[in-house]
C-alpha cells in the first residue's frame, strides 16, 4: 500500500514536468512580448540613446531571443534564477524571503476561513432556511462582495485608527522588534522556535488584520461548498440508513455525512488557496506586507524579466506541490481514490 502510494506521488511529480517546461518557455516568451522596454526603464530618468544602448548591452537584451533563452535555461539548471533589476537582488533570495511572508499570510487567512466557514456551512445544511442558514448566506455574500482592499482599509480604520487596539499596519513586524533567525521564514513559527515569545506576539498581532481581510474573502466558496455537499450527503441513502439504524445524531452527522461531504470541500480548498495567493497583492499593499504579490506586480510593471519569470516558475512549482498534497490527502480520506492514480 505504501509503495503504491509512493508510486502515485512519483507519477504525479513526473506528470508535472511537462507543465513546468511549458511554464518556463511560455513565461520567457510572454515577458519578452510585454510592450515595455526594460533597457529604457532601467537606464534611468535622464537616459539618452547612448546610455539606453549601454544598459541594453549590459542586460544582455541586445542578443537574440534564442541566445537569451539558452543562457536562461543554463543558469536555471545551475540554480541561478537571475537578478531582479527592480530590487537589485537575486530573484531566488527575493522569493525565499517574500514567499514565506505570502504563504504565512495566506495560510493564516485560510485557517480563519476554514474555522468559520466549515462550521457555518454544516450548521446551515442541518437547518436549511432557518436563521442560521440566512446568516451564513449574508456573511459569505458580504465577505465575497467587499473588495479586499476596502475590507483591509476598513479594518485598519476601525481597529488601528479609531480603536487603537491593532498594531500599526507596517508589515510583518513593527520596527521595535528584530526579525527572528531564519528557519522556515514564517515569523510566527521562527519566533516560537527561538523561544522569543515577545516577538512571537508581535508577529502574531501584525498577522491578525491582514489574515482576517484575506479570510473574509474566502468564506463564501468554502461555506457554500460545505453547505451544498452536506445537504447532498444528508439526503443520501447511507445517512438515512444510519439514522434508521439508530446511530447517534453526532455519529451520523460527523462520521458519515461530513466524512463524505469533505471531499469536494477539500478540492475547493486547493482552489481557494490558489486564488487567495493571488488576492494577496491588494492586502499586501494596504498592510505593507513584504510578500511576493507586490514584488510580482512591480516586476511586471517594470518589465523586470528575471523577476517575472522567477515568480511564475515559483508559483508553478507551488501549485504542483499543492495539488500533489491535495491528491495525497484525497487518497488518505477516500478509499476509492488512489490505486488507479
Amino acid at each position, binding site marked *: 500500500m505504501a509503495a503504491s502510494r509512493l508510486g502515485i506521488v512519483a507519477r504525479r511529480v513526473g506528470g508535472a514536468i511537462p507543465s513546468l517546461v511549458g511554464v518556463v518557455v511560455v513565461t520567457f516568451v510572454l515577458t519578452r512580448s510585454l510592450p515595455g522596454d526594460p533597457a529604457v526603464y532601467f537606464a534611468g530618468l535622464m537616459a539618452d540613446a547612448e546610455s539606453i544602448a549601454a544598459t541594453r548591452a549590459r542586460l544582455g537584451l541586445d542578443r537574440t531571443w534564442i541566445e537569451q533563452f539558452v543562457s536562461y535555461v543554463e543558469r536555471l539548471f545551475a540554480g541561478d534564477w537571475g537578478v531582479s533589476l527592480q530590487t537589485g537582488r537575486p530573484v531566488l533570495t527575493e522569493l525565499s524571503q517574500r514567499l514565506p511572508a505570502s504563504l504565512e499570510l495566506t495560510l493564516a487567512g485560510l485557517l480563519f476561513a476554514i474555522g468559520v466557514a466549515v462550521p457555518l456551512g454544516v450548521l446551515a445544511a442541518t437547518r436549511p432556511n432557518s436563521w442560521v442558514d440566512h446568516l451564513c448566506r449574508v456573511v459569505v455574500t458580504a465577505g465575497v462582495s467587499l473588495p479586499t482592499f476596502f475590507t483591509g482599509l476598513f479594518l485598519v480604520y476601525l481597529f488601528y485608527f479609531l480603536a487603537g487596539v491593532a498594531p500599526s499596519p507596517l508589515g510583518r513586524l513593527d520596527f*521595535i522588534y528584530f526579525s527572528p533567525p531564519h528557519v522556515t521564514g514564517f515569523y510566527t513559527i521562527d519566533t516560537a522556535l527561538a523561544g522569543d515569545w515577545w516577538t512571537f506576539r508581535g508577529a502574531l498581532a501584525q498577522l491578525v488584520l491582514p489574515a482576517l481581510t484575506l479570510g473574509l474573502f474566502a468564506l463564501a466558496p468554502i461555506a457554500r461548498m460545505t453547505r451544498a455537499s452536506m445537504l447532498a450527503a444528508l439526503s443520501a441513502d447511507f445517512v438515512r440508513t444510519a439514522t434508521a439504524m439508530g446511530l447517534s445524531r453526532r455519529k451520523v452527522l460527523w462520521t458519515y455525512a461530513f466524512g463524505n461531504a469533505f471531499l469536494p470541500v477539500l478540492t475547493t480548498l486547493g482552489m481557494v488557496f490558489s486564488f487567495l495567493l493571488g488576492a494577496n497583492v491588494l492586502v499586501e499593499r494596504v498592510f505593507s506586507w513584504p510578500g511576493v504579490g507586490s514584488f510580482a506586480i512591480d516586476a511586471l510593471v517594470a518589465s523586470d524579466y528575471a523577476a517575472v519569470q522567477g515568480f511564475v516558475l515559483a508559483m508553478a512549482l507551488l501549485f504542483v506541490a499543492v495539488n500533489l498534497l491535495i491528491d495525497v490527502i484525497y487518497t488518505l480520506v477516500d478509499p476509492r481514490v488512489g490505486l488507479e492514480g
Partner: protein
Amino acid sequence: MDRRQFIAATGAAGVLPFLKAMPAGAQGRDDTLVAVTGFGPNSMDIMRVGANRPAYQPAINLYDRLMRYGIRELPDGTLAYDKEVLEPELAESWTMADDGMSVDFFLRRDATFWDGTPVTAEDVKWSFDRAVLLGGFATVQMRAGGFTDADQWEVVDEHVFRVHFNAPSKLSMPNLAVPTAIVYNSALCKANATDADPWASDFTHVTPAGGGAFKLERWDSGQQSVYIRNDDWKSGPLPGVRRVIVREVPSAATRRALLERGDAQFSIDMPAKDAMELNENPRVKVEGHPIGCCQHHVGMNVAMAPFDNVLVRRAIAYALPYESIYNLAAFGRGEKLWGGEGFEPAEAVWPLPSPYYTDVEKAKALLAEAGMPDGFETTLSINLGLADWQEPAAVLIQEALAEIGVRVTIDRIPGANWRTAALIEKRLPFHLENFGGWLDYPDYYFFWVYQTGRLFNSVNYSDPMVDEVTDMVLPLETDHPDWAPNVKKLIAKVWEDVPLAPLYQPYLDMGMAPRVEGYAYHFHRLLDAKTLTMA
C-alpha cells in the same frame, strides 16, 4: 559579517532573548524619526545602473559632496534650498582660476570615512571618474554640467582637488552639489572591485562606502532602510535626530493613518488630496513647496495631424478646463500656470503662467479658422504611474473638449511602457506629461524639453531659433546682459507655438508631526534628514 548575520549568530547563541528590542524601543523612540514612503530604494548606490528615484535618499544622507546648497527661509516660514548659495561640505573653500577655466577645492583636513580613513583628493578623483565613466544616470547628469571626461579631474595634492571646465558654464558648479556628485571611500571600493566590476558597483549596491552624516544601520529591500547618525561627522552641524527609519508603505491611506496616529513622524511626498485634507488637521503639519523647474502640461505632438497646425494647438490651449483641473486633479496643491498677462513674458522665470485661459468661443473660432469647425477625434494618453493627477485631469479635458467638438478617447499606458512610447518613440499625439529639472534655470528646462530631439521633448517640437538661443544662453550667468532678454524670447516663442499647454506647477508635499522642525525642500524631492530636529 554583516549586521543581519551578526544578529542571526548572536540570536542563535542566546543573546537575542535579552536584547529583544532595538535600543530605540527602550528609549521610547524619542531620538528616532519614523518616515513613511510609498516606494523604497532598489539600491544603496545612486550610480548603479537601474537605481530608482528613491535611491537618491541614501546618496543624500550617507555620502558627502564637495559642496551643498544653502538653506533659506521662505516668506511663509518654511525652509528651502537656496540655488544661489553653495556651502562647504567636504571642501572647506574653493577658488576659481582667473581665466574661469578651472576651480581648486581645498578639502577639509579632519574629514574621515566611517572606517576612519581620511578623505583625500584621490577619493574625490576616483568618485568623479566613476561618475563620468560608469554610464547611466550619473554620467548623464555630469554631462549636464559640462563634465564628460575623467581628464577634467585633477589631484593637485592630498587635500587640493582641481576641476577643469571645457567651457565656462553657470551649470558647472551647481552640478557638483547634486546627489550624484558624491564622494566614495575609494580604498574600500577598490578592495571590493573585481575584473568584471571595476567600479565596485555590486559592493556599493548593498554596502555604502561613504563618510556622510548618517551611516546605514540596516536595509531590508522592499521594507525599510534604517540610518543612524555618524557622530564623527565633520562636514557640518551634527543631525538633530539620532536614528531615521524610512519604512515603505505602499498604500497612501495607510501612510496617512500612520501619520495621523503619530506612529510615523514624517510622510515623504504625500498625494495632493491627503495634503489638502491634512492641511486643516492640527495633529499634522503639511509643508508644500512648488517644485522648481517643473510643470504639469498637456503635450500636443507637432509631428502629427491635426496638432501640426498651430491654430489647433492654440484652440486646445483655449479650451482646456484649467480651473477645474487645478481644483480636482491638483487639489489646489500647485501654482496656477494659466491666465498670464500677454504673450510677452514680464520676467525671465520658468515656469510662468502662460497667456492661455479657458475661452470656449475663442477656441471654437480658432478651430474654424483651422478648417475644422466640427472638431476632430483624438486619443489622449496618460501615464498610469501618475494616475493620481492624470486620470482626473484627462476626464476633465475629455469633457471640456467635447464642447468644441473634439472627441477624446483616453488611453491609459502602464508606467514602464510610457517612457518608450512618450519619450523614446515620441509617438503619442496628445498626452499629459511632466518634467522637473534638478538645476532650476529656465534655459535648463528648455534644454531638456524644447530643443530638437531631446529626451523630454515628447511633442517633437523643433524650432531653429529655440535650438540656437538655448545653446547660447545655457552657459551664461543669469546676470549676463544677454541672458534675460534671450530667455524671454524663448518663452515668448513657445507660448506662441504652444506645443505644450502648461496646467500648473505641482507642489512637493511633506507631512510631519508638529514637533518635527527643520525640514527643508530640496530639488531632489527626497528627505534630507540632516537638518531635522524633534522637540
